[in-house]
């Protein structure tokens, strides 16, 4: 009996072939090339690990989305849901005494059991980098500039980057002693910019009016050229001023390297993203696509979870989302040459020579010759490499 499932794919997965498969591979090579040029080398973590490693610091939501299964000893394993957590484990357990900073890039599938939406499936491809062992504005600026450059080199124009800072929100809530659920509520309202909702949440929390006012103003944040003054006006303690000063330095460094107006904006309500983010965070957008193509941030406490503490920052590009933003490519997939299948050593040498010269040579294993072979080659847009012993009987 055949199962109803054997011809189907699980929800949220897809098959890629022909032009789409070629386009994705080309995109991945383009990204890898850019990462290499900036001095990043590849890291290839395994596809699955112990659940404990993958779930570490993943946050409640991502943890719910993990694909979990058992090995034969009854241990729980999980498919990776991002690359940053496995890389943090590798650095903390194996590379902690290497010269810092370390620069890694990665490309591969990640797996999340979420409702497929917004251009994301349950298996999707991330291409990204991690800059490990540096906690400077120069490091923040390099990571953001590389994200921008990577999107530009794969052909995306008009990329816009929105920059936030997790530590600013933390500074505004410093010393209040709020419970984690209360912080989560405030954070959720601010990051949705739900000012009215935030006001009613804050009314129930013990804090001075000045702080309450600053938080409500934060939820109503609008980027402008004078963002820095606006941000300082929200500051209520030395810590928050310092965070803005650091952010200013990152933005100024970026302005110098980005070479385009209106590419950067500052959004202090950007508090989403991975739960392990601790500092500067950012997301990149292009016109016509309703979601971010790249997102990243600083995570200075994640690596310490696995061993020796080490500051780091990185980003991940959603490769499928980037593909949605690019026009469909009409890359030529067919062969350049269709060769007649015969068994002459000298004919075969011609085939080998053409392949060495970089041509795509297809041998017609169905044994066509003459007009039939020419018609077949024409249908593929290729030239013919006919047997040189025309009319003679092929030997062997």
């Amino acid at each position: 009996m055949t199962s109803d499932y054997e011809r189907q794919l699980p929800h949220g997965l897809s098959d890629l072939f022909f032009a789409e498969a070629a386009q994705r591979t080309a995109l991945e090579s383009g990204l890898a090339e850019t990462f290499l040029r900036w001095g990043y080398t590849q890291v290839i973590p395994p596809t699955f690990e112990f659940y404990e490693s993958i779930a570490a610091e993943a946050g409640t939501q991502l943890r719910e989305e993990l694909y979990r299964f058992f090995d034969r000893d009854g241990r729980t394993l999980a498919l990776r849901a991002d690359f940053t957590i496995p890389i943090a484990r590798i650095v903390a357990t194996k590379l902690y005494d290497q010269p810092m900073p370390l620069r890694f890039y990665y490309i591969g599938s990640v797996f999340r059991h979420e409702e497929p939406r917004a251009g994301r499936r349950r298996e999707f491809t991330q291409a990204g980098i991690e800059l490990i062992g540096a906690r400077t504005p120069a490091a923040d600026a390099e990571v953001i500039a590389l994200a921008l450059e990577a999107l530009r080199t794969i052909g995306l124009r008009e990329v816009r980057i929105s920059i936030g800072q997790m530590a600013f929100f933390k500074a505004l809530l410093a010393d209040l002693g709020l419970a984690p659920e209360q912080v989560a509520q405030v954070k959720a309202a601010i990051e949705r910019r739900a000012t009215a909702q935030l006001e009613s949440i804050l009314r129930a929390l013990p804090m001075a009016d000045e702080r309450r006012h600053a938080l409500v103003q934060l939820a109503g944040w609008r980027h402008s050229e004078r963002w820095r003054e606006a941000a300082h006006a929200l500051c209520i303690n030395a810590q928050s001023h310092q965070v803005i000063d650091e952010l200013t330095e990152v933005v100024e460094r970026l302005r110098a390297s980005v070479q385009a107006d209106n590419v950067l904006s500052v959004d202090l309500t950007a508090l989403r993203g991975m739960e392990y983010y601790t500092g500067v965070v950012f997301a990149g957008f292009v016109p016509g696509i309703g979601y971010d193509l790249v997102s990243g941030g600083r995570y200075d406490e994640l690596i310490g979870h696995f061993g020796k503490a080490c500051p780091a920052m990185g980003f991940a590009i959603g490769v499928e989302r980037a593909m949605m933003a690019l026009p469909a490519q009409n890359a030529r997939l067919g062969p350049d040459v269709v060769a007649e299948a015969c068994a002459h050593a000298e004919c075969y040498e011609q085939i080998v020579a053409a392949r060495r010269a970089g041509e795509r040579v297809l041998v017609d294993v169905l044994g066509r010759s003459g007009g039939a072979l020419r018609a077949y080659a024409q249908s593929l847009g290729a030239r013919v490499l006919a047997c040189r012993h025309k009319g003679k009987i092929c030997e062997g």
Partner: protein
Amino acid sequence: MRGLTVALPKGRLFERSLQVVEASGLRFHAARSDSRRLMFADERSGSRMILVKPVDVVTYVEHGAADVGIVGEDVLHESGVDVLEPLTLPFGQCRIVVAGTPEQRNANLRLMTNLRVATKYPRLTRDHFARRGLSAELIALSGSVELGPAIGLADLLVDVVDTGRTLRDNGLVEIETILRCAACVIVNRASQVIKSESVNQWLAQMQIASSQ
């Protein structure tokens, strides 16, 4: 505020939504006529308005097919979509409540096993009962939810109430309020960055228009 696509909900919130959008400076002629057109242009600002079912407003905005939209918070929270919601509007106020027969008002829900709840809002209902540690069997209906308890299909219902008249007419009483809602403006996250100038200008004008 050039080039914005605004999604407005058909039905209950449409008239007030259109009023406030027009007061914000966008003009969509013929939007009130009974034609079956679903898309209207404001040539002057290069903006357009699309007219869709309330539940679809959130979908259009989440995917960026519309930059901004107006929708009831009940629909927004039920959908669970990831959008910005910067402005609450002064109309469309309603509440999502748990209701049942008068006897149930005094019943201890924790002691009721096999609690069956009829609703158009499965997500909000599931979350509400789960937060209280109650396991409820959801009976998803698409309308006339009041019939559920009245006819014995369900023990309770979760639905939106405006004046509460429909509940009373069907012999039901409110047990508790889950959520207070009003109409609100939602904004696509990418549009907030890509078209920030237009979006911010429009939001500022909407704020003025809606507080008049």
